[in-house]
């Protein structure tokens, strides 16, 4: 199945940036499925609707689900796979005092759903899950520098993690935005702006920065890299 499983963090940054419509446009262009597990649904819909400040955002996500742009996959096996990943990730690093429980069940459920469905594509905007999947050694260095202590690694769990999750494609909302831009999904959005090249640059730069401001774990230098790719250089 060609699909991307979403962690709540990616949906949150897209929705709070009013850019979730990109998912609709990307879905139109391809046959890809955008999936969320039950726990992510609870975080992006149920929790949002309960919070005075995020009710509208909750409705927006619900609308995406109602239009079949996002699909909730509530599979029994997900729990087992999520617990397996949670167990590995939360027993990967330890200090002389105790093991570091870094990951929450919601994040683990997105990874678990990938495993159940045999999907390798995971959209996650928060940094810790991404670092665990892509470069646990880097996360170890970050922990050591922030906690000011030696961090030890459970080598067996690290091996297990690399064998089972090392081939995941982790992407963020910014990658979806850049791809959408490349595919021309902003054509309507920019319809009334003429052919002004600077406006097009500003549009991409503004959207990337908005996603960053709304919590997507992307650095300013990475935004510069994007601008370099698309326009041959413009400071973000």
């Amino acid at each position: 199945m060609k699909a991307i499983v979403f962690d709540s963090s990616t949906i949150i940054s897209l929705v709070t940036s009013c850019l979730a419509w990109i998912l609709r446009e990307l879905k139109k262009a391809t046959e890809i499925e955008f999936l969320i597990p039950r726990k992510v649904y609870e975080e992006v819909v149920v929790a949002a609707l309960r919070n005075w400040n995020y009710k509208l955002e909750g409705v927006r996500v619900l609308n995406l689900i109602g239009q079949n742009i996002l699909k909730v996959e509530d599979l029994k096996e997900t729990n087992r796979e999520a617990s397996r990943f949670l167990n590995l990730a939360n027993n990967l690093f330890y200090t002389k005092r105790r093991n570091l429980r870094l990951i929450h069940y919601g994040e683990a459920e997105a990874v678990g759903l990938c495993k159940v469905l045999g999907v390798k594509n995971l959209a996650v905007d928060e940094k810790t899950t991404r670092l665990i999947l892509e470069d646990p050694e880097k996360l170890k260095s970050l922990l050591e520098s922030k906690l000011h202590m030696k961090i030890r690694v459970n080598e067996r769990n690290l091996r297990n993690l690399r064998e089972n999750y090392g081939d995941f494609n982790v992407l963020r909302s910014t990658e979806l935005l850049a791809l959408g831009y490349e595919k021309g999904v902003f054509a309507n959005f920019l319809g009334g702006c003429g052919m002004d090249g600077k406006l097009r640059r500003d549009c991409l730069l503004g959207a990337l920065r908005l996603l960053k401001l709304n919590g997507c774990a992307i650095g300013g230098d990475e935004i510069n890299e994007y601008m370099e790719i698309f326009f041959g250089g413009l400071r973000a």
Partner: protein
Amino acid sequence: MSTEKYFYLRKLLTVMEIEEEEVKDILNVLHAAEELLREFKIDELKECSNHIIHSAAIYQDKYAINTAIIIYAISKVLERRKFRESKEIETFVEKVLKGLGDLSRALEASNLEDFMRIIKSMMREISLVDRNFSEYLEHVLHKARLKKASKIYEHGLSLGKVAELLGLSKWEVMQYTGKTRIHDRKDTKTMSVRDRLKKVEDIFS
């Protein structure tokens, strides 16, 4: 079971709930905060609340987390000019100093129930001042929670874990952390943007 035995067992259980190293960390911060408040060093008091963050990230319990929140909130309340110029400030500082002392004593006696009771009463005191001297809709204690959530996230815990520990929603933690420089650190970058874009193009091809 005799009453004496009951209280002995209850105390034993609460002692097991918190580790010696964590007690030491919290006590150090509480003593430092008391000292700084006596000297009215507000900026340093605010900074002092960060010294317990590594403990909060490791132990992930309410004691270290609430200590950090309380100290930060006290410093924020004391920053307000309107409050600093009011006559209520003296009583507030006295109450807070007493509260910090009581917290240390409760912790030294391993009385964690008392520790949490004092925390709650200090939070009530802060809320009262906040209500009278703030022009913001957002409560100072809520802001303190968000601030500490973002600090713990910076220390390596995931967003979901942090939101759960601080009793916040992921929505608000993301919006807060997005306005910090946490994601500009070089050590969170794992791949070039060009490679990332290539990957996503392959997924959609």
